[in-house]
């Protein structure tokens, strides 16, 4: 099925609707004189990677009636004095760090480095008005929660990805509801490094549209220091060369302050499996 770029600015007349398929999610947007309605239906097939738009349609011509929604549909209504015709959809990166595993167990010898390509799911930002005001941000797919940290007492709640980090860019298919991040892992230590899982802090990354509508973020550098488990994280400033010419779609959620160091820990849970 041909994939359409689903983000952009759309004009709705009074009592018009639109339907978006973004990966496994179906989104309906309705405009009436004093309110906007959003209907979010998350599909049961997480591998669905469709991307299409059907807009504008008169409100009476939609296959989904607001009075008779399927049980898994989530309806949201926003009231205004008067609604504006403009609606903007933008992709956004996840609101928490994402934990990634390489496709095969990976060992990096001393002095060596590797680049992993990871795709993370995107959120859909829906804004209305000539000066965009945010209505809602919905995930295209709700990832699983996971914990990343040195123990069950300290750490951070993240999203766990079911897809894996790949060593070859060609093996990543075009999916318009996911963004690709190159991760450069370098081992400056004196022994081999086992890359079991990596925590990717996507809140500090921005989103760019590259060649063929692939969505990219800046590359991330993970350097394992000599003798240490902890890898320091550095973000590149510009989108990667693999993306080709790019346009910025969305800046980062959080700004990295000059003296802030983001650290990522390696695997820690071996000792926890013994408790009963």
């Amino acid at each position, binding site marked *: 099925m041909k994939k359409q770029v689903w983000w952009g600015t759309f004009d709705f007349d009074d009592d018009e609707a639109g339907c978006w398929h973004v990966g496994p999610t179906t989104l309906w947007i309705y405009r009436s004189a004093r309110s906007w309605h959003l209907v979010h239906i998350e599909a049961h097939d997480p591998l669905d990677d469709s991307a299409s738009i059907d807009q504008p349609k008169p409100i009476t011509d939609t296959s989904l009636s607001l009075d008779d929604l399927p049980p898994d549909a989530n309806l949201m209504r926003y009231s205004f004095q008067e609604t504006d015709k403009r609606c903007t959809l933008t992709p956004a990166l996840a609101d928490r760090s994402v934990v990634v595993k390489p496709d095969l167990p990976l060992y990096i010898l001393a002095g060596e480095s590797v680049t992993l390509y990871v795709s993370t799911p995107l959120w859909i930002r829906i804004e209305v008005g000539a000066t965009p005001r945010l209505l809602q941000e919905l995930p295209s797919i709700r990832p*699983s929660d*996971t*914990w990343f940290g040195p123990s069950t007492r300290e750490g951070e709640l993240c999203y766990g990805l079911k897809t894996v980090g790949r060593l070859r860019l060609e093996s990543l298919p075009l999916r318009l509801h996911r963004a690709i991040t190159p991760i450069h892992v370098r081992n400056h230590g004196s022994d081999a490094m086992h890359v079991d899982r990596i925590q990717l802090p996507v809140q500090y990354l921005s989103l760019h549209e590259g060649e063929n509508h692939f969505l990219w973020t800046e590359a991330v550098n993970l350097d394992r220091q000599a003798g240490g488990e902890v890898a320091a994280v550095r973000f590149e400033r510009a989108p990667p060369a693999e993306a080709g010419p790019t346009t910025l779609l969305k800046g980062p959620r959080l700004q990295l302050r000059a003296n802030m160091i983001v650290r990522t820990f390696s695997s820690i*849970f071996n000792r*926890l*499996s013994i408790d009963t």
Partner: protein
Amino acid sequence: MESIWTSVSEFLRGPQAVSILYAIIKLIVGLVAARLVSAALVKLFAQTSPHHAAIIRRVSFYVIAGLFVASALLELGFDLSVLLGAAGILTVALGFASQTSASNVISGLFLLGEKPFAIGDIIRIGNITGEVLSIDLLSAKLRTFDNLFVRVPNETIIKSEITNLTRFPIRRFDLQLGVAYKEDLDYVRELLTEVTDRNPLCLDEPRPIFIFQGFGDSALTFQYSTWAARENYLALKNSLPTEIKAAFDEHDIEIPFPHRTLYTGAVTEPFPVRVVSADASAPGTTSDKSAPGTTSDKSASGTTS
């Protein structure tokens, strides 16, 4: 008669009479003043609460009356150092009486330093679970989940074990399950892993743990433990068993009811079974006149005929 009158009038003219007179005046003035002042204090400070009003009235009355009585006694020539002895004994008595309160205060100070819990945490003491509303001088106040107010003395908190349910960010949910003996445990484990992978609230790491517990009376029992963020614990506790049950039903995995096997043994005859015809008079009775639960055969062991 006249001699009594003379001695009385002589007494009345002496200095002792004057001091008695002063003492009486002081007593009367003291009592009146005490009453007036206590009423005024009640009006000023405790209009609204009858409980406080009673306390203020009594305390102020007795303090002021007491001062005037002491002054009157001094006037009459009594030595008040006896009272100091009494005050000493009173202090010791007060000390014994306030033992628990003092212990509570000191326990409270230690608790402040140690910080086993803070306001807003959910703690369990004994069999009371609730949210901490305040940590005061003598006690901590809890609100239970059914909205009851519980006051726990600090002494109890210091002496007993407290479980703080909100100290750590993630929590493990242990589900006890049993499957029928005919099931393949490896297949059951795979199924459970699929269910937890699908549930977004169940954390991918730490991975869910499968712990075999034993060959039970009626089933193979095991524990399946999954982790969730603390805020999602209740949602996981409700959603996961439902999903597991649905998956078991879909794949025909049996969670057995308790089983009892009746065994007649190698040296005895088997139990006879007689099928009752469909047009019997009432449910639960047989067409024979024998009592329910018996057979007319004498051969079965364990039954009466």
